[in-house]
């Protein structure tokens, strides 16, 4: 057998202005004409990794490459993908293992300020589909359900187009790429606009035609998920990484980015590349792909362009809305899973929301609390009652009717909401709010008559507009 030419992985793109370089692995086809069509995608290497896996690798070997890569979930939680796949009971093991098994692709990108998966689905749907098929091959899954955010009509159209093309080309169907014994189908399921349906078990309920109420875990979806069967749920970007992991090897991917902390045996590091975004009070919002290692400041200033003319950055939520806020002098931390946790925040979806000095933090909190109060599914008492209660308190403070005791009450509510619910929506509500209340306490006191706050700061903020998130 003739030795195949070893494909070479993308390299960091040279930069001349001293900015952190981009590395285009996932985004290599962004901007290419008709990149979403099968013809163009194939010309540019689509399904080569799938072909390689089917020709040369066992499912177990694909799983091993993913484990070696140490790729972590890109939806926000950062769970190691290979470990998650390893939980799926194998066929022939009896019980759950012998049931049909599903992949649910979490494409319900509804986190405020987050629009990275949208790029992948609109511009490279075949890459997404290839990732799904590799996952299905590795884990023995027969059906892919792509649960897409309903407000993404172009994504829905491009994914459906890609599925149609793939089916016609024999990439989907009874024998994937002619490989006997590997049958796989894919279906697009548009969501109906609920944030909670992006939570994996809420998504499964929704997919089953029920209300998006998250389930209590365990059992975890990998064992008992959609329709009572073993189900892998992964984020779009996570699976889009798999073709290059298979193509260039898990070791290649694992060698990129931030290595695990050698002093911390539980550290997993942040391997590979990552789509990162910036929105909010910046000059050039957008999405770019970097090898892990870029700092928050390098991202929001180097690529986001910094605060608009004449303003300064006040605070940044590094990953969507659901993470604790960083102040302007805390931005020299790397955009990495462990690094940001160590800095008291989290990577989340790695799409930074920037607030400048015109942003009123009291109103920002009211806005954030409103979002979570509105999106709380209503299932668990602390989240259902607590999120709106917090919003009411922020409204009261905004109107100048608050007292310092309200800040103590808020702290009490944070404690009684965080970690007291079935899913993490309540935690996601508490984390940004608590960090803002703690780090910008003076702005809250300034809104309280006679509370001795910093009047100058409060006065400037009170008259200024603000924008937080893109709900």
């Amino acid at each position, binding site marked *: 057998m003739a030795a195949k030419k070893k494909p070479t992985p993308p390299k960091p793109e040279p930069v001349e202005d001293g900015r952190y370089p981009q590395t285009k692995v996932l985004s290599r086809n962004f901007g290419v004409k008709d990149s979403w069509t099968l013809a163009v995608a194939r010309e540019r290497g689509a399904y080569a990794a799938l072909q390689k896996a089917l020709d040369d690798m066992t499912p177990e070997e694909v799983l091993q490459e993913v484990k070696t890569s140490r790729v972590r979930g890109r939806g926000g939680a950062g769970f190691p993908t290979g470990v998650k796949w390893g939980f799926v009971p194998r066929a022939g093991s009896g019980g759950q293992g012998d049931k049909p098994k599903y992949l649910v692709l979490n494409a319900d990108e509804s986190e405020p300020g987050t629009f990275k998966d949208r790029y992948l689905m609109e511009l490279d749907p075949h890459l997404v589909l290839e990732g799904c098929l590799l996952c299905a091959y590795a884990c023995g899954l027969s059906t892919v359900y792509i649960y897409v955010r309903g407000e993404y009509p172009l994504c829905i159209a491009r994914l459906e187009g890609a599925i149609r093309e793939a089916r016609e080309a024999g990439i989907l169907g009874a024998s994937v790429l002619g490989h006997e014994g590997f049958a796989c189908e894919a279906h697009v399921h548009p969501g109906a606009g*609920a944030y*909670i349906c992006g939570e994996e078990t809420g998504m499964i309920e929704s997919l089953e035609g029920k*209300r998006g*109420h998250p389930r*209590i875990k365990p059992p975890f979806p990998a064992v008992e998920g959609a329709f009572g069967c073993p189900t892998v749920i992964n984020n779009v970007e996570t699976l889009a990484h798999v073709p290059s992991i298979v193509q260039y090897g898990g070791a290649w991917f694992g060698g990129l980015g931030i290595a695990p902390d050698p002093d911390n045996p539980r550290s997993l590091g942040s391997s590979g590349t990552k789509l990162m975004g910036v929105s909010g009070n910046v000059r050039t919002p957008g999405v770019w792909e970097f090898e892990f290692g870029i700092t928050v400041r390098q991202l929001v200033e180097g690529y986001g362009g910094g605060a608009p003319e004449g303003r300064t950055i006040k605070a940044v939520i590094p990953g969507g809305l659901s993470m604790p806020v960083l102040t302007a002098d805390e931005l020299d931390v790397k955009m990495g899973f462990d690094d940001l946790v160590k800095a008291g925040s989290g990577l989340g979806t790695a799409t930074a929301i920037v607030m400048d000095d015109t942003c009123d933090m009291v109103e920002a909190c009211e806005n954030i609390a409103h979002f979570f*109060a*509105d*999106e*709380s*599914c*209503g*299932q*668990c*008492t*602390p989240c*259902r*009652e*607590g*999120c*709106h*209660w917090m919003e*009411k*308190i922020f409204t*009261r403070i905004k109107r100048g009717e608050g007292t310092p005791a309200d800040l103590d*009450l808020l702290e*009490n509510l944070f*404690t*009684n909401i965080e*970690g*007291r*619910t*079935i899913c993490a929506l309540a935690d996601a509500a508490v984390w940004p709010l608590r960090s803002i209340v703690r780090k910008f306490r003076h702005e809250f006191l300034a809104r309280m008559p006679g509370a001795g706050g910093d009047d100058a700061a409060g006065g400037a903020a009170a008259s200024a507009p603000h924008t937080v998130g893109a709900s």
Partner: protein
Amino acid sequence: MAETKSTDGGPTITIDGRVLPYEPGQTVIQVARAHGIEIPHYCYHPGLPIAGNCRICMVEVEGWGTKPQIACKLQPSDGMVVHTQSELAKAARAGTMEMLLVNHPLDCPICDQAGECHLQDYSYQLGAGRAVTTTAKTKLPKNVPFGSKIVYDAERCIKCTLCVRFCEDVAGTGELSMGGRGDEEIVIMTSRGEFETGYAMNIIDLCPVGALTSRDFRFKSRLWFMDFTPTVCTSCAKGCNVVTGGRDGRMLRMEPRENQDVNRWWMCDEGRLDYAFVNAPTRLLAPRVRDAQGGWAEVTWDDAIAAAAGALRDAPGSVLVDGNCSLEEMLLAGDLAAAMKGKAKYAAATGEADGWLRVAERGANAAGAERLGLARQKRAGTSALLVVERDANVPAALRDGSGATVVFASDETLVPDSARVVFPLGTWAERDGLLVNADGRLQEMRANGAIGPGNLTAAVEVLEDLLGELDPERDWRGQEGLRAELRAHDAFADVEFPAAREAAGVGAGS
């Protein structure tokens, strides 16, 4: 370190310092319950799937950090150490109480649930005893009809979903769902009009607060003015275990009582509401005899017994009893029939079975009657003595066709023209006695002292007096003696009787 092995070496968990064995599949709340440790709960119910949403059953698990766990879902593992009264657990529950009350209306003074409300109880036990919010409460729909029998108040609702899960998972009809999000989430009825299930009113009992109230019962009485008595429903022969509630002579409601062998926790709506005749304005209140003009004269019980004995001596015959009569009453009916050289018979209606609890046989003690050898009266036939509680069991054709001169009836509309002496009969809610249900299970019917005219001599006593008049050789047995005789009876050799002490303690409700 506490001892973590049970004496037989099986797995154990430690709850509040007590080492407790557990069965596979049990959750911590169940293990605790089985050993007398009550962990507060709203959304947990042993007969429904676990929802884990109310967050009041949170407990601390040693070594699991500062995140409290919900006991309703927590699977025990060998050696697990659980604290229900630690600072963390208590603070977590108090925090949940605070959340539950922040939007809950303070309308306890006009709420039917007051007095049996878990929110009240847990506020008292676990709440902070102070209000920390000054913000306006969220407004939600009130007085929403759920079918014709149930009324929903979304503001009182704590969204535990017990009612939704009952309709979905127990009744299987799924009329209810949650709707809306956040603190505007409410229970909605997904079908218009009536519930498909004939068991919808169980959701009123399940509701831990006053969000679901009974159209039949609401605003009728404060609970603490009522008396409650555990008994069995006699609307059909299933014998669902129930509690009757009454006040000032009126029966106000009936609710199911848990019995895993009969009705689990449930009862049908038809049976639950089958008590209007108890409160009928035409109830008989005093014994009466025909006077010379053919009208009625009210007399004393003794005079009525003497008159009845005379009537039965003059015209002896058979005895026909209602299929809802107790075993004691039926035993005496047999003895009386024998004394008159007649036959003892019973009459009972049949109806539709619903495939769940309600059975076709409507005679609550028809099975008992058969065991005692009473024949079922299907067509009109003559009898000297008639006992009738329910129109359906002993319809007009049987009553009028009996030609009975001595009649025990709960209502004057049930008295045939042939009657010379009439004794007022207590309804099943007012009588004590034993019944055998359709499954051959012996159960106890108990009188609620707050229901009925209240001055009625028990039919079983009057029947025994009559027997004494007709057969002076007979010893007085009384209810205890009758039960002893039944216990020794061949027909009940395979039946388990209630404990003698419990039987002796039968009396008016609390």
